[in-house]
């Protein structure tokens, strides 16, 4: 692993052990990840791709410090995601699947002020940051609106601002453009490239959309059945990705 890597994943495995109330029953464990290793450099946008159940969200949750790996180690900004918790979570900004962290009845500004405090920012530090990020994400007009009045695209931008408030060195995004129309998705992708990776953060994002991955990812990790099937540039991974996705759609 490179010493400068912001994300270092070494032999990560995750097994789930289903519980059964039946006496003597021992349901078989389910492996969500098997020996996955890779790294992400500062300013690099790495895409996690793979069919449903490939282990993308599991991997992101392990890195976010919300899930314990069964084996292996993972470090973010030189901090072990298990041993150095909760400190490791300070350097991470995460929008995981179905992110509903914003309170619908509060304005975007009120939500962002709350999350600033959670990450130890004083209101003196938070106010200009919120204003600056809102400008960069073309969301200044959203700040005074209640979250429940936002469209899906506007909400995605508000979530992204929340993720970036404390200037994380590692950003984890789980299908953040999933529910967006093509125009809004493309705009958000451009903003992620320019405002997140462009400012030196290491970005790891899960996606099903190969055109999105081709457009913005500098590297791609293809997961299949919990294993790292391929890691490299999109051109290197494309053929295997198409094979894995078509095998998955035939199986379903």
């Amino acid at each position, binding site marked *: 692993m490179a010493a400068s890597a912001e994300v270092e994943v070494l032999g990560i495995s*995750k097994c*789930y*052990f289903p519980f059964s109330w039946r006496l003597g029953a021992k349901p078989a464990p389910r492996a*969500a990840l098997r020996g996955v290793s890779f790294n992400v450099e500062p300013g690099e946008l790495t895409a996690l791709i793979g069919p449903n159940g490939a282990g993308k969200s*599991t991997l992101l*949750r392990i890195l*976010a*410090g*919300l*899930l*314990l790996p069964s084996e292996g180690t993972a470090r973010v900004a030189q901090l072990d995601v298990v041993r150095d918790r*909760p*400190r*490791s*979570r*300070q350097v*991470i900004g*995460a929008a*995981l*699947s*179905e*992110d*509903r*962290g914003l*309170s619908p*009845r*509060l304005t975007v500004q*009120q939500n962002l*002020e*709350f*999350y600033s*405090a*959670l*990450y*130890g920012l*004083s209101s003196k530090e938070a106010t200009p940051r919120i204003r600056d990020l809102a400008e960069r994400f073309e969301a200044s007009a959203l700040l005074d609106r209640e979250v429940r009045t936002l469209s899906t695209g506007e909400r995605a931008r508000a979530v992204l601002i929340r993720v970036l408030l404390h200037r994380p060195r590692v950003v984890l995004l789980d299908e953040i453009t999933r529910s967006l129309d093509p125009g809004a998705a493309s705009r958000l992708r451009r903003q992620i490239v320019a405002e997140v990776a462009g400012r030196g953060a290491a970005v790891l994002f899960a996606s099903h959309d190969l055109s999105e991955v081709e457009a913005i990812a500098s590297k791609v990790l293809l997961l299949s059945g919990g294993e790292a099937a391929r890691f490299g540039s999109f051109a290197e991974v494309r053929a295997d990705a198409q094979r894995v996705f078509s095998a998955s759609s035939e199986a379903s």
Partner: protein
Amino acid sequence: MRLAWAFIRRDLLIAASYRANFLFALAGGVVTITAFYFLAKLIGPAPLLERYGADYFSFVLLGLAIASCLRTLQATFAQRVRESQVDGSLEVLLGAPLSTFRVVGYLAAYQVLASILKACGLVLLGAVAFGARLRINPWGFGATLLFAALPFGALGLLSAAVVLVFKRSDPITYVLDTANYLLCGVIYPVEVLPPPLQWFSKLLPATHALAALRAAALSSAPIQGLLPAWGILTAFALVLWPTAAAALAFARRHLEQTGTLPHG
């Protein structure tokens, strides 16, 4: 403190956005007081309450106000955890660089403060509008409330740990709430219970908290008279806090191992 204030401010803003709910909660308290005021008139002077130095209305007003505060402490942590599980914000909160203990604690901070304010408001209303006779030792009452909060806060965190793991079930709050209202002297004195139940009631912290808080509020009991109750409540706290801390740590580990944190 800044962090606690951030949670309190957020929850206050959310509560204020549900104006009708706030008004109904207030009206509910007034209706309860009124009902007990007329019930007290029906009962008249009760010899069993002489040792409390109060009539039935003052006795029950204090009992309901204190029980409501203690119940909030005992139930709110679990309720707030459950709400956050359902609205999906729990995962985001636990993804922040804070311990589970602090997140769960701060989640309940607003509700606990609101409950104390509501209880004080009801007692004040009872005294001013319904003539409840209070002879408060304010320092003794405040300190006893703090000592009472210790075991009940721990019980609340223990319930929250159960909800983190089992999601919908909160047997601790249900069992203790029922036991408190039945056995600990909320709406009738413990002395009316059969001797075995009176003995059993002494095993519950609410009995000691209610007795001491009533003594401080109804007969202006001096600090020396409250010391035994403070000792008992501290003993409960010494057992319950490490248990609650261990339960929360276990619950967090369970969530992280099973991947059930995002599950509602």
